[in-house]
């Protein structure tokens, strides 16, 4: 098995664990920020020295730096899609509880009609 295959499979499992355990604690939000800073630094570096991504790709058993970027993009996109989905589910529940509170507040009894 190539390095890249191992890394990609590990990322997929990380995705599943993230999905299962995702509770938006302050700590996990801090990690998101740290990850974002690392991403920005890596992005600037890759723009300045594009050929270095190919060197990293070779370490991992990928032919081209472009391919490596594509794999990284797919994983990042999956993470973001799943976390958006979970966020929406969470909001939907809060929204339902808000609507329920309004509904119960305005309940009508048959005799008051």
């Amino acid at each position: 098995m190539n390095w890249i295959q191992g890394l990609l499979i590990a990322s997929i499992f990380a995705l599943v664990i993230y999905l299962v355990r995702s509770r938006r604690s302050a700590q996990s939000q801090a990690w998101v920020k740290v990850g974002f800073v690392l991403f920005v630094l890596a992005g600037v570096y890759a723009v300045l020295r594009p050929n270095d991504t190919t060197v990293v790709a070779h370490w991992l058993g990928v032919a081209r730096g472009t391919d490596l970027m594509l794999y990284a993009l797919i994983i990042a996109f999956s993470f973001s899609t799943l976390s958006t989905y979970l966020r929406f589910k969470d909001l939907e529940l809060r929204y339902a509880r808000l609507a329920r509170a309004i509904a119960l507040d305005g309940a009508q009894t048959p005799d008051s009609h």
Partner: protein
Amino acid sequence: MPSETSDVWIVVPAYNEAGIIGDVIGQLRSAFANVVCVDDGSADDTGDIALRAGAHLVRHPVNLGQGAAIQTGVEYARSRPGAQVFATFDADGQHRVTDVLAMIDRLHSDSADIVIGTRFGPGVSRPPLLKRVVLQTAAALSPRGRRLGLTDTNNGLRVFNKTVADRLDITMNGMSHATEFIMLIDENRWRVAEQPVEVLYTEYSSAKGQPLLNGVNIIVDGFLRGRMPR
């Protein structure tokens, strides 16, 4: 009206059922003093008809789904003085009032916490073939349903006591609440019994029934439910 049903509350979630809700509420009111209709943001005048037919009315300002409507109805009913027994009853006219009465007797005689209707019991007519295949697949795919010995995990007719009503917290807004009910029964170790009920597959209720594909949603939502904050 029999006085022994004064502690019973019937919860009827309704969405765009103006054509039939009046009859359904009327039938229920001939046997039960307390009926609450949850109008789930209907575009027609379902809510007003239900209120005129003698139901209490709780109106969702927006459409939230049947699970959310049941939760709202139960929260309303459990806050009413004297409420001890609760039932969920579909608004599309597919359930029979006599079945509810039998299930209430069963709740008391078996000292169960919750009695669920089943379409696969002795002495009731069987659903159409396709419906039967879908329902039995859903029941077979529910490990908890199997463990609890339930044959019909998606029946809309349920009768339960105050213990269940007080702890009930349906978080699946859509049609997956049936699975969530089963999960809650399992998690809270409620004593459950099954009662054969007749389900009337009228043209009206079939037209509004769940499509086959919805089974996929129910299974995926069931898997994700444990991940949601309670």
